């Protein structure tokens, strides 16, 4: 059975743990550097990216985590997780750090405030042809995408432009939306079965 960690400093940790367990894998919380050992994959949950980044530093998890990811630990980040994994961010706080492991630039709160948060049926051809009910909460989007990064889903924003909201570079997966809130396990299965 695969062992999947969930970074458990803040955010919707419990929903990711349920999703992992419902996929038939073993889920474990990651709060300290030692928790990163013997994992087949890691999920960075939704939450407040500024808070999680600060807690990574305070509890001396930032560098061990960055090292594990650089050494190839598969990782999936949803929403705040996407922001934390990105090489660059737009509209972060002045001192906001990221792990810089995927070649994308992410715009924080790109779709707006909570009043603009929404659900939308999303097509993810890489997974299958059935639409995915995607939940976007104060969500970021991918503003710039590196040459080695593949966009797996896009949506049109109010500015009329298409923006990537799901992308993969090697064994790093990021989404703007929250599959963990839906009970639809397809994105988690894709990560656990195809990437980990």
């Amino acid at each position: 059975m695969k062992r999947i960690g969930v970074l458990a400093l803040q955010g919707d940790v419990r929903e990711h743990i349920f999703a992992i367990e419902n996929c038939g894998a073993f889920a474990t919380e990651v709060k300290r550097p030692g928790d990163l050992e013997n994992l087949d994959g890691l999920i960075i949950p939704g939450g407040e990216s500024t808070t999680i980044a600060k807690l990574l530093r305070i509890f001396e998890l930032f560098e061990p985590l960055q090292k594990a990811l650089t050494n190839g630990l598969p990782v999936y980040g949803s929403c705040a997780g996407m922001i934390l994994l990105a090489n660059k961010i737009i509209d972060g706080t002045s001192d906001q750090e990221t792990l810089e492991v995927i070649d994308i630039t992410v715009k924080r709160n790109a779709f707006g405030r909570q009043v603009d948060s929404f659900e939308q049926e999303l097509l993810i051809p890489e997974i299958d042809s059935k639409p995915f009910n995607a939940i976007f909460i104060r969500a970021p989007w991918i503003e710039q995408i590196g040459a080695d990064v593949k966009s797996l889903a896009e949506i049109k924003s109010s500015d009329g432009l298409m923006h990537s909201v799901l992308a993969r570079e090697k064994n790093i997966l990021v989404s703007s939306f929250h599959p963990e809130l839906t009970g639809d396990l397809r994105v988690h299965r894709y990560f656990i079965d195809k990437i980990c």
Partner: protein
Amino acid sequence: MDQVTGTARVKRGMAEMLKGGVIMDVVNVEQARIAEDAGAVAVMALERVPADIRAQGGVARMSDPDMIEKIQASVSIPVMAKARIGHFAEAQILESLGVDYIDESEVLTPADFEHHIDKWNFTIPFVCGATNLGEALRRINEGAAMIRSKGEAGTGDVSNATTHIRTITGEIRRLASLRPEELYVAAKDLQAPYALVKEVAETGKLPVVLFTAGGIATPADAAMMMQLGADGVFIGSGIFKSGNPAQRAAACVKATTFFNDAKVVADASRGLGEAMVGINVADIPAPHRLAERGW
């Protein structure tokens, strides 16, 4: 493929993202920045913290939109604001400002002694206070997307917060132990809709996130609330009425994350300077107890 805003999933989901975090009351831009720097997951923008409302008396109302907008412009984390119980026009104003969450709060003077706001009418999600499970389920039935146990705001006395979180979680455990045919009477006793009572009995939890609030003033208070089953904490007067707000704010954030690790909570508790002086809830005459507002 249409984008749909304001759904229950989107409203409740927003609260899920705040779990394991601390939401701090702030009265100006400077405090909002201190809160964000300390790792707050959101701030509650209001003109007077509960301790000052208590001290100064008078009618407490929604904050000035200018003040709320300044705070929105100064931080990137979610900004919440309070409307009076039942005051749907204040809530409409807050929605038009684009605040991220509205707290229909007993800390302000109630505007309606019978009806709470019909929260389903709004795109913005609401958090409401509760002292017991029946009250929590009535608020959820009206559309609340997040519940906080009330405690007694502005006191620095955590005892009522303890009572309320223990009551709510205890009543949930009791419901989960009942046989299906016993749930009808349970709903009658709780004065709550049967469908919600049944849902809680089956899942063993509220259908929305449950934070705690009211009198939390130290890292140890925060850790205790988390161990008692809260998903996160609101800290009102406890931070900015203390000797060293920046340090106390950061300490409460640490203790909320590592609530089960006494060593981390001990370290967070060192050298914080003066805590807010506080008032014992028992010394407050009944008409001035905020937790009793809400029906």
